[in-house]
């Protein structure tokens, strides 16, 4: 029987606010354990939370970017459960009244665009981290992360393959990073994904029993875990058994999902409105203010690049994959006036250099002005494309502008017709046999002469000029 997977994702994104959601502690990652803590995030007796307004603003941004409706009034609720990394014994989250609901994003699939529904986006606080020492019967707790603001983005069960899930995940990641509200770092856990997955016979409308997958800390692992889980469920159904509703952990080293807890062990979180926090009222003017400052989103940028710069869809996709890269490209394109050339250099050499060193475009040593200048130098014939290949490497290595490098290395193209004609005459005189061959109709030999001229001029001669002069002089006498 053919089965169809049904997938929904729950994404947790840490917001890039300076301070935590309910206290003024720093949110910076990587500090000494328990140094970014205070009485409030440690859940000491008698302390109270006060909401960081920036968290609301960032969540509104994400809601607008994903076409969600923003509720005029929302509130926080307590999610009650015991765990050592949760100092209060409850997590402050949103439940019955989230900040926003009913949104969507479009993903591109081979069959075209597909719309994935977003059920809700809500704010909550992160928990701390347990550090287990295998040699000890006890564990350590680091509460630096406790109270770092998170948004949870819950999708509708609209995805039908691991590829779709992956595309959706990447789309949300891209938007969050574009909005500069999340650094998107999956390894450090600032962007996390849980998946709900079930399968059903193709054509069936009712959902099958789902499992929840956790602990997938890369895009690749999300797809691998889903593929594994889909196959596992298929195997279970085909062998006449039933899928059990449970939470399963992805084990990266074994490449399998393992049962973590079953439905009967599922928590009853006893949600109720947090009496320590007042309802958050978000009026039209606040939303309008945030909307006004919303950056151009990746999809819109992509379409604009294709339209305004006449770029193919692939190029536009690569160049808009990050906001900094897109800005870099646009600077080069506008300064040089040659968008296609700008696209080729950025997508080719620049990205290759950066990838080799795992560097980010924001740390690129070549300034957009320098690259634009180099493109113009090719255009006006000062240097050849071939010379440019060497120059750009030097630019990347030293950060120097192209003119400096050209000057230092004496790399200016030979465009002096008389000097070049003299060199060509010498070469023709030294290669009479080949000249005869050419004149006898063997035009292939032409390339040989070009090579000889390039060699004699150390590659500095203008290729167009070589061509013109060679043709003229070979046919002349």
């Amino acid at each position, binding site marked *: 029987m053919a089965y169809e997977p049904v997938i929904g994702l729950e994404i947790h994104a840490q917001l890039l606010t300076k301070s935590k959601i309910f206290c003024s502690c720093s949110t910076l990652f990587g500090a000494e354990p328990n140094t970014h803590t205070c*009485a409030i995030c440690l859940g000491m*007796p008698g302390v*109270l939370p*006060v909401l960081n307004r920036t968290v609301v603003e960032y969540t509104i941004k994400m809601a607008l970017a994903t076409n969600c409706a923003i509720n005029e009034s929302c509130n926080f609720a307590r999610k*009650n459960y015991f765990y050592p990394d949760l100092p209060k014994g409850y997590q402050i989250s949103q439940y019955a009244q989230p900040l926003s609901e009913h949104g969507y994003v479009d993903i591109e699939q081979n069959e075209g665009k597909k719309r994935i529904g977003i059920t809700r986006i809500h704010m909550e606080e992160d928990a701390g981290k347990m550090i287990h020492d295998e040699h000890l019967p006890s564990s350590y707790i680091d509460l630096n992360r406790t109270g770092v603001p998170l948004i949870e983005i819950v999708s509708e069960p609209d995805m039908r393959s691991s590829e779709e899930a992956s595309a959706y995940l990447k789309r949300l990641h891209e938007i969050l990073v574009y909005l500069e509200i999340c650094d998107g770092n999956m390894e450090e856990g600032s962007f996390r994904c849980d998946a709900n997955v079930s399968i059903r016979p193709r054509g069936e409308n009712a959902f099958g029993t789902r499992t929840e997958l956790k602990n997938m800390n890369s895009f690749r692992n999300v797809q691998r875990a889903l593929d594994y889980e889909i196959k596992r469920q298929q195997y279970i159904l085909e062998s006449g058994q039933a899928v059990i509703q449970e939470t399963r952990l992805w084990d990266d080293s074994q490449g399998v999902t393992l049962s973590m807890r079953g439905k009967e062990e599922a928590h009853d979180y*006893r949600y109720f409105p947090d009496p320590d*926090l007042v309802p958050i009222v978000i009026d039209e003017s606040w939303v309008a203010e945030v909307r006004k400052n919303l950056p151009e989103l990746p999809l819109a940028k992509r379409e604009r690049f294709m339209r305004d710069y006449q770029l193919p869809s692939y190029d536009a996709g690569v160049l808009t994959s990050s906001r900094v890269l897109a800005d870099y490209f646009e600077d080069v394109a506008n300064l040089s006036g040659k968008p296609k050339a700008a696209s080729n250099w950025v997508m080719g050499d620049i990205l290759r250099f950066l990838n080799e060193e795992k560097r980010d475009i924001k740390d690129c040593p070549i300034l957009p002005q320098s690259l634009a200048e180099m493109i113009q130098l090719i255009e006006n014939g000062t240097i050849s494309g071939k010379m440019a290949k060497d120059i750009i490497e030097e630019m990347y290595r030293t950060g120097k502008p192209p003119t400096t490098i050209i000057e230092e290395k004496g790399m200016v193209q030979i465009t002096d017709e008389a000097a070049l004609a003299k060199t060509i005459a010498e070469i023709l005189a030294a290669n009479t046999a080949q000249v005869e061959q050419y004149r006898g109709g063997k035009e292939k030999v032409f390339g040989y002469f070009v090579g000889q001229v390039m060699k004699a001029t150390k590659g500095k001669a203008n290729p167009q000029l070589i061509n013109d002069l060679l043709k003229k002089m070979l046919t002349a006498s």
Partner: protein
Amino acid sequence: MELHQLTIHELQKLIRSKEVNSSDIVKSVFKRIDAVEGSVHAYITLMKEHAFEEAAKADRCIREGNIRALTGIPVALKDIVCTKGFLTTCGSRILHNFIPPYDATVVEKLKEAGAVFTGKTNMDEFAMGSSTETSYFGITKNPWALDRIPGGSSGGSAAAVAADLCIASIGSDTGGSIRQPAALCGVVGMKPTYGRVSRYGLIAFASSLDQIGPFTKDVEDCAIMMNVIAGHDPRESTSVPLDVPDYTAFLSRGIDGFKVGIPKEYFIEGIDPEITEAMRGAMKAIEGLGATCVEISLPHTEYCLAVYYIIAPAEASSNLARYDGVKYGFRADDCKDLLDMYKKTRSAGFGAEVKRRIMIGTYALSSGYYDAYYKKASQVRALIKRDFEEAWKHCDVILTPTTPTPAFKIGEKIDDPLQMYLSDIFTISTNLAGIPGISVPCGFTRQGLPIGAQFLAGHFEEGKLIQIAAAFEKQANLKQRRPNL
């Protein structure tokens, strides 16, 4: 008269005229503590050394003429407000060793006003109780009759003021925990409007009901204390950013023309006849001052107790989850794993009443029961609130007995939670509605036990309460009578 017997305003006169200084007052109070604290047991922790140090500092201020609202005045704090560097137990074994690294806002404000702290007073564990019998640190006795309870949960703070073991004290009131012990100990106790006094640093019992307030020897002192502790606190989201009036300005305004509402639902069966009699006396006294008493109705009164015993335990079950033995406080020994540690710590760390309420609250919030209990209770709470809104159309303040009976015997109700819960029957609605209330002495039973009258007013109308309580207090003229210790 000994210095410890005086009120804040009386002592301030003596301080201003340089007749006494803070060290004299603190010395007198600790002499009194040495003499009778053994039989009353109002305190969990005494801060004697600290008090004398602070008194010496206050004396310097007095000499320099820098006299603030409470300079040099000995004040006791219920052991539910966090004091930086001083044990704060909440009356519980689970916090028997907890020393907060911060001060509650109210503590900061009192310090700022120059108060000298005498110690941390005894209370029902986590403020759950009406008799101060559930404390892990022993029972506080009523100074008027040592075989009786002082009321609760702020029994220590009430007894300390009544027995002159401090000049004024701080309590907290979630369902009557200031007003009920104030009534039973014959002192003045006010529960301000929810949001009027900061809850930051008040160890939470039921967050939507908890409110800090003062115990004082008279209404004027209550106004002085309120001037110090009231006001907006940016550290609390439910704190209300409203200006605070000078409450002492209401003291001598009189109540000519006041309409005093008498809710018919509050004169129920089971109320002690001597209390009914005292209430009749109170109404007469008020009318003698130019006010009129009008019968009003608070139709949802009968649901108050039921609503309270859903909402308060529900919030408590969540608020008390943090006491898990992981970070601070008591942790059980010999635990085999995490779950075992939680179970043993919480089983041994909490007393029976706290565990009872955690279980009730957990149940009320459980999936499948939430709508029937917590949600329904919240809806009825809105109706109770509306009852009061309706009542203010017919009267300025409401008068009720504070308690249905005078102080009962130690041990009398401790094994009968329902009987115990009934002792808050007249005070609970105030917390559910978030309005302010004050209890003032209004008489004594033939056995010599104090009786309290409770006045209630609309949100942020503490001034009106001080106005009527001050007028009534003057008329009732009960201040000369003191417990015989």
